[in-house]
Every structure is written in C-alpha cells, then in structure tokens.
C-alpha cells in the first residue's frame, strides 16, 4: 500500500483563458506523462478552449475531464477536474469533495475575474486549501503586484508572494525563490533544466524587503519560526513548515508566478504542491450518517476502518466502464465485496487499477485517501461504496432534488438520434439531477434539470462529445399542484353497454400530506371492497397524481384514504376499481382547494456596489423576495428568492443593467404557492392548450 502522505489530490481552477490548458500540458511534460510539448494553437488565444478539446482527442488522454495522474519527486499527484461552469450543481459539490487542495491560476494581466470569485467562494465553503499561481508573466502589461492586491481585496485571501520575478513581460529571465533566497533559471529548449544561482545584485534589495514581508506574515503560524526570525536565524525547513501550516488552516495563500507558455516556474509550482498542499490525512472529510438523518460524521482516514469510497467519475474505456473512486476510509481490496449505498446492491471488486504516467498498474488494494479506478462496477457517479450493508454512511447527500426545469430536444437527423440516446444514457448516470423521458402526448424527448445553465451545459456536451446536434425547445417550468384541505368523495363507476359490465364504488377522502408526495390508506372494514381490488384503487389514485386538474402539473402532497365502497360479484374488476378511484379523486380534488406551486430559486447576484440598487430593482420586478446583502469591499452580493419562471433571460438583463460587471448564480431552493393572479393566468393557458 502506498504511503498516503505522499499523495496529493488537487484541482486546478482558472478563469477561461488564463492558461489552464498550457499549464496542465507543462505539468504533464515535466512529470514525463507526455514526451513532447504541443502548443495550443492560435497563439492569440482565440479558440484556445476548442483547441484544448482537440488536443485531448489527439492524445487520447483527458487533460481536463476526469483525473490525470503524474509523479513528481516521489509523490503521486492526482489532478482532478474542477468543473468549468459555476452553476451550483451536484457536480461542483462532488468535485470539491474529492480534492484536498487546489491551485488557483490567475492571469497576470486579467487578474481576479468574476468567475475566480465564485470558484473561490465555493472552495472556501468546502475548506479547500489553495496556492495561487500568477501565469502569463511574459504578457505585455503583466503586473503581479496588482493581482496580489486583488487576491487580498476581492477574494479576501491572505495572499503573500513567495517568489519575485526577474523581469516581466518580454524580459522575464527567471524567478527568485524567497524561501531559499536563490535565483532560479529555466534552461534548455523546454525549460526543463533548472539552474540555481545567487540573486543578481539589482534584485537584492527588493528581495530582502519581500522576504521580510513574507516572514512577517508566515511567522504568525509558527512560534518556532517567530523566535528564529527575531534571532535572525530562520531555516528553510522552518519557513516551509510555517507556510504549510498557514495554507492548511486556510489562513495563508502562498503566491507563485511564472509563465507556463515560456516554460518558467512550473517545476517550482509542482514543488509547492508537494510542500504546501495537504495530503489526504491532513484534511477533514465528513460522511453522512443515513441512519441519523444525514448527520455529519468525521471520516477517520484510517485504512483498517470500514470502507467508505466515493465514485466521482465514470469513463467509457476499451474494457467497459471505468469508475474512478476515492477512498476516504478503510481499504479497497481486490476480491472484496462492496455495497453501493444508493442501490443497496453488492458488487465484487474485480480489477483494481492505479493510473500511472503512461499505463495502468494492477493493484491488490488501495488505502484511505487514495484515488484508483475500478473495472466492471455498475454504478452512477456520486455513489458511495461501503464494506457492508450495516455500515450505512454516504459521502454525498442521498437527497436528490427533483428537477425544476425542462426542455424538449429533437435530434436533427438519424445519426444524431443514435448519438443523443447514448449521450443521455451517460449523462443520467453521471448526474442524478439530470433526468430524461419521452412525453407521452407529444412524443418529444424531454430533458430536465436544475436550471437553464445546467441544461445548456448538457446540450453543449452532446454536441461536442457525442456529435449529436439537437434543436432545443423553449424551457418549461415544472409546476406542481397540491391540495390544501380535506375533501370527501363517494363515486360509483358503472358501465353496462354491451359485453361484460364494469362496476365499482369507492368512498373516502383526500387530505393534505405534510411530508412526502403520496400516501394511500386503506380503512375499509367488513370487506365492502374486496381485498384483491384494494391495490387497484391505489393504482387509480396514483394515475391521477400525474396530472392535476388545474394546469396538468404533477400533484404532490396528497393522502388518499378509502373508507367504504361496493362491488359486484360479476362486473367488478381491477380496471373498474381503478376507474372508480380516478373518478373519486377527480370528484374530491376540486373541493380540496387545490393550488399551484412553483419552483423558487435562491439567487445570488454580485456586482460593484454602485449597481446594488438597480440589481435589487430588477430582482424585485421579477417577483423576487430580497433576503439580504453582503458587503465585501467594493462588491455587494445580493441574495434573493425568485420564482424560476421569472428568471429566464436574466443574465442578459443583468449584464445590460450593470455594464456587464455583475453576474449571478442560482440554485433550487423550494416549492412555493403561486400568487393568485399568476395562478389564474396559468389556468387559462392550460385550458386553452387542452382545447387545442
């Protein structure tokens, strides 16, 4: 079993166009994962993102899709994909769960951009320690100082440089390491030969000042270092130890710089990943105890404890489905049987592999904190595996929110049709919040998910990864109906026109159900409805739940109770009682004062404070309830609850209101009653549609 302290599970997070692809390329090159450097085509940066996709294909490896592995100085580094989009979905949560630390890449010209802010906030929420890397120091207008200031102001990070660049823009020669006080040059065609020298005289003074500042900031985390600094004898180890401590506590962010494109600084960044970012046992992870209402329990990280592992990514390989798992606790052994907590199914670990620089290594076991891949395990991503069914813990919440928005998609030709179904099959496995079905009335394929952007991402992926071109319909909000009071029914279904007749009578009542969607209660005494027809009544009621009488939306929160009924010796049948139950439901439904519920989104809009008023106004207009604001330096974050139906096209509106300086994220919050005026509108619309 490999030494877990020598494993780093990290993510690389970057704003578009700050050089994530190039940097990842260089990392893979220096760690000998790949043997030649291919430039991202289009040096002006145009279309860089597409280029990276092409590159990935040519290489046959995935640079930014699942997890990439490399070895650096006796340590194993797993680079895990951090989602490029910031929409808060299960996917983001899952990625952040798997990584222990992150590298935040920033462009030395662009600095901290809005997406960096959002990603940074999520990382803070999940307590992910990070180091910052200011890339593109060779670009005209490079200004690392300004970027560091932004890191402090906009991201509220205690960012302190631990390097000084020797020259900027075109003149960049190398870097000075402030910990060791050495100048580092990157020689050779690909910058792979490191040369260390004394600091050139013209940088001496600047470095002394910067080192002083760094020691000041870092000595906060180590008394030993503080004493040594006072005595003037700090050692390299002490400083590195203190930086590590501060980084792990999320109170310090070491800032490095360089230019991946010109092959400068990447090796030092890798060193920093090893030196300052946590190994799996350094961070606390929490599992959810399913026997105690998903209470959080700290994961022990001990390999001899019961197994807890999370499947975080699936990949279709040559040999079938490859499942990437991270173990949090316990040991994953070849030949063991493991239990998928979500489905309760047992599976046997057949092949267990660790991905290496250029091949897979078959292994027999993997200890806590490791990332390995399994073959031939049927599961969805986000599933938790444990060692036995009595160990009922999950790494991710088992509660999957119901989709709130849906779109119809139509493939443009037959080929696209095939590819589309492949893609949909895959996506639904990967993401439990993404669902798909065929509408029984219109025969269209409907996809549904947690937000407009969520679905956009999948439509885009279908196009790119599966070459399935589809035309997309207008988004539909998933309304729901529910009842607000108890209502009785007593319905007789009778049909005697030719053939065998149908007869069934049911009586009972509907009432609101506080929790849950549907409940069926059988209170029949004396056999007025024969035993065998009770399930028929249940079935009949459930059919009615699919389509409410108000706007045809799914009905939830109803308890159906039957108390009495009647049957006929010959004419009663399964179908007769189903129809009787349906009739009863319809009879009582309108009396039970039904209402329409709509999905409410929690919206967080952030922008410069001067636009605060207009952002609030725009949310107000959209029937939003403003919960509050959070002041962060020159930025204001406004949180509000807004009906999803009002949020279509909000990003365009927000941009034009704020000169493109504000952006927003949203996630599903709850279902709430639709106001009367809106409800009436919806009802008339639904009636019109029915008449057609």
């Amino acid at each position, binding site marked *: 079993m490999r030494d877990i302290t020598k494993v780093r599970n990290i993510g690389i997070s970057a704003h578009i166009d700050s050089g994530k692809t190039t940097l990842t390329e260089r990392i893979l090159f220096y760690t000998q994962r790949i043997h030649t450097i291919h430039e991202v085509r289009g040096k002006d940066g145009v279309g860089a993102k597409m280029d990276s996709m092409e590159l990935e294909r040519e290489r046959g490896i995935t640079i930014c899709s699942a997890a990439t592995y490399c070895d650096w100085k006796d340590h194993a580094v797993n680079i895990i994909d951090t989602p490029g989009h910031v929409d808060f979905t299960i996917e983001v949560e899952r990625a952040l769960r798997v990584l222990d630390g992150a590298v935040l890449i920033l462009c030395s010209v662009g600095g901290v951009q809005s997406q960096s802010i959002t990603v940074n906030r999520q990382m803070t929420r999940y307590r992910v320690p990070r180091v910052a890397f200011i890339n593109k120091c060779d670009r005209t207008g490079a200004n690392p100082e300004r970027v560091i200031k932004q890191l402090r102001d906009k991201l509220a990070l205690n960012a302190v440089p631990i390097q000084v660049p020797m020259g900027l823009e075109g003149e960049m020669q190398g870097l000075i390491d402030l910990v060791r006080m050495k100048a580092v040059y990157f020689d050779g065609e690909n910058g792979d030969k490191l040369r260390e020298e004394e600091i050139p005289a013209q940088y001496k003074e600047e470095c002394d000042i910067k080192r002083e500042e760094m020691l000041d900031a870092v000595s906060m985390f180590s008394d030993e270092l503080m004493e040594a600094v006072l005595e003037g004898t700090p050692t390299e180890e002490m400083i590195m130890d203190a930086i590590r401590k501060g980084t792990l506590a999320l109170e310090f962010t070491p800032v490095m710089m360089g230019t991946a494109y010109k092959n400068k600084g990447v090796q030092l960044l890798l060193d920093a990943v090893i030196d300052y970012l946590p190994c799996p046992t350094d961070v606390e992870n929490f599992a959810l105890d399913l026997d105690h209402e998903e209470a959080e329990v700290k994961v022990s990280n001990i390999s001899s404890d019961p197994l807890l592992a999370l499947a975080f990514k699936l990949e279709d390989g040559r040999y079938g489905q490859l499942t990437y798992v991270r173990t949090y606790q316990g040991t994953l052994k070849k030949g063991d049987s493991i239990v998928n907590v979500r489905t309760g199914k047992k599976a046997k670990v057949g092949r267990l592999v660790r991905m290496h620089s250029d091949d897979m290594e078959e292994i027999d076991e993997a200890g806590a904190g490791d990332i390995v891949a399994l073959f031939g395990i049927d599961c969805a991503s986000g599933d938790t595996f444990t060692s036995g069914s009595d160990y009922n813990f999950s790494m991710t919440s088992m509660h999957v929110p119901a989709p709130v928005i849906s779109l119809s998609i139509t493939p443009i030709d037959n080929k696209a049709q095939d590819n589309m179904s492949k893609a949909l099959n895959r996506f639904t496995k990967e993401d439990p919040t993404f669902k798909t079905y065929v509408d029984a009335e219109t025969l269209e394929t409907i996809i549904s998910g947690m937000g407009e952007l969520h679905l956009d991402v999948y439509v885009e992926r279908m196009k790119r990864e599966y070459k399935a071109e589809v035309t997309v319909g207008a988004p539909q909000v998933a309304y729901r109906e529910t009842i607000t009071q108890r209502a009785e029914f007593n319905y007789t279904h009778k049909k005697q026109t030719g053939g065998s007749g149908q007869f069934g009578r049911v009586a009972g009542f509907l009432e609101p159900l506080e929790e849950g969607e549907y409940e069926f209660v059988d209170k029949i005494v004396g056999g007025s409805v024969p035993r065998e027809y009770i399930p028929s009544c249940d079935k009949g009621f459930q059919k009615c739940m699919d389509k409410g009488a108000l706007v045809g939306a799914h009905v939830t929160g109803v308890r159906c109770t039957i108390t009495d009924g009647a049957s006929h010796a010959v004419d009663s049948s399964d179908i007769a009682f189903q129809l009787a139950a349906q009739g009863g439901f319809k009879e009582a439904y309108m009396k039970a004062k039904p209402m329409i519920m709509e999905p409410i989104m929690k919206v967080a809009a952030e922008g410069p404070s001067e636009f605060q008023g207009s952002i609030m106004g725009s949310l107000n207009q959209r029937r939003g309830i403003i*919960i509050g*604001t959070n002041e*962060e330096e020159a930025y204001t974050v406004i949180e509000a609850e807004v009906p999803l139906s009002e949020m279509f096209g909000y990003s365009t509106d927000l941009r034009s209101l704020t000169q493109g300086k504000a952006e927003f994220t949203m996630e599903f919050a709850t279902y709430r009653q639709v106001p009367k005026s809106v409800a009436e509108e919806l009802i008339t619309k639904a009636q019109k549609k029915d008449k057609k």
Partner: protein
Amino acid sequence: MLKQDLIEKNPIRHLKGESDAKESSRMGLVMARAGVGKTALLVQIALDSLLNDKQVVHVSVGQSLDKTKLWYDDMFKDIAGGCKLDNAAEIHDGIMRNRMIITFNESKFSLAKLEERLHDLVQQNVIKPSCMVVDGFDFIDADRAVLEGMRDLAKTMDMQIWFSAVSTDGVDIPASGVPAPCSGMEDLFNTIVLLKPVSQSECIDLNIIKGSASVSKCGKLLKLDTKTFMIREDCK
C-alpha cells in the same frame, strides 16, 4: 390563534417602550456573555416589528446571510408552532418581504457604508425600516463617534436601533451597572438589558439596567427560556 393575539401576547413590545414618548427609545442595547441568547432576543425584537407589518433591517457583522436567515426561520417556526398560528405560511411570507439582512464581514463594518446602503434602499423604495437590529457590533474596538453617528442615523431615519454586545466574563459590574466593554457609553442608549442565566433554573433573567419607568417595571416579569431563548412569562 390569530396574528393580532400573538402580537398582544408577545411581551417584547413593552421592552421596546413604544408606549413611551417617541424620543425615549431610540437606541437599545442587549448585553450578555457569549451564548446566552443575545441574537435570539434581537431576532425577537425584530419579529415583533415584523408582525406589526413594520419593516426591519438586520445588520449582521461576521455572520453569513444564511445563518441569519435561519435564526428568523427557526424562531418563527417555534412561535407559530407553539401557539398554533393561523395562516403561518402567509405571515412568514410577509415577514420575509419586510425584512432585509445586511451582512458585513468581520472588521469590514463601516458606518458610512451602512448609511449609504440604507439611503439607497429607501430611495429605491425597497424598504423603509422602522427598526434596525445590529448583531455582532464590535464594542471593544468601537469608536464613540460611530455610535453617536448611529444615534443620528436613528433620528434621521426615524427608527429604533438595537445592538448586541458580549459582556466580558469575570469582570465586576461597575457602579453604573453597565459591564465592560460598554461602560461609559450608557448615555448613548435609552434602554440597556443584561441577560443572565439563573442558576439551577430553566430561565434567563432579563435585567433592565437602564430604561424608562414602564420598561423597567415590565422587565421584572420577563424571562427567557434557556432551551428556546423565547421570552416566557410563566417562569417564576
């Protein structure tokens, strides 16, 4: 129970001294050791205004929006559940509309910013508060001028402002009765309440250190329940 009954049953309005002359309750202060129930009392003060269909601004320093919102949701649920309030969901909706939370990161609180924000809100017609509660204000490093500014703000915006302050443990109460760190500032506040847990009892004492006659009188009767941090009258 109807909303009106709930309002009348809630003794907190006595504390706010609204029956007194208008000028008398511009600024209030709730003091206690950490964890005794300052925020709970502030939220109750805010809820009382909200139930009266008045608008409230809740300023929270160092606490997140979600956490602050949760306080309201939980307290309202307790109150509504405890007295079987009719139309609870509807009333809760109304409360949300009339409440605005402004959070500041620790050490980022500034009076100028708050003032600007409030004026913005009034101008944009988003909210016009008649009560503001300030939770987590740092009294230890506070400048007297800031509090004086707040007092002026209360006057110009025509609202009550309630603060919470952590009283330093183990320090003797000075003669004026106001424990550190707020001693010497008592003249700025119209009402000062000190929360104290009563040993071996389910209650927390509401000690009125400063306040008008009627406020002091009712203060004797008020107790907080340690479990729910709710004001209860039945506790002897």
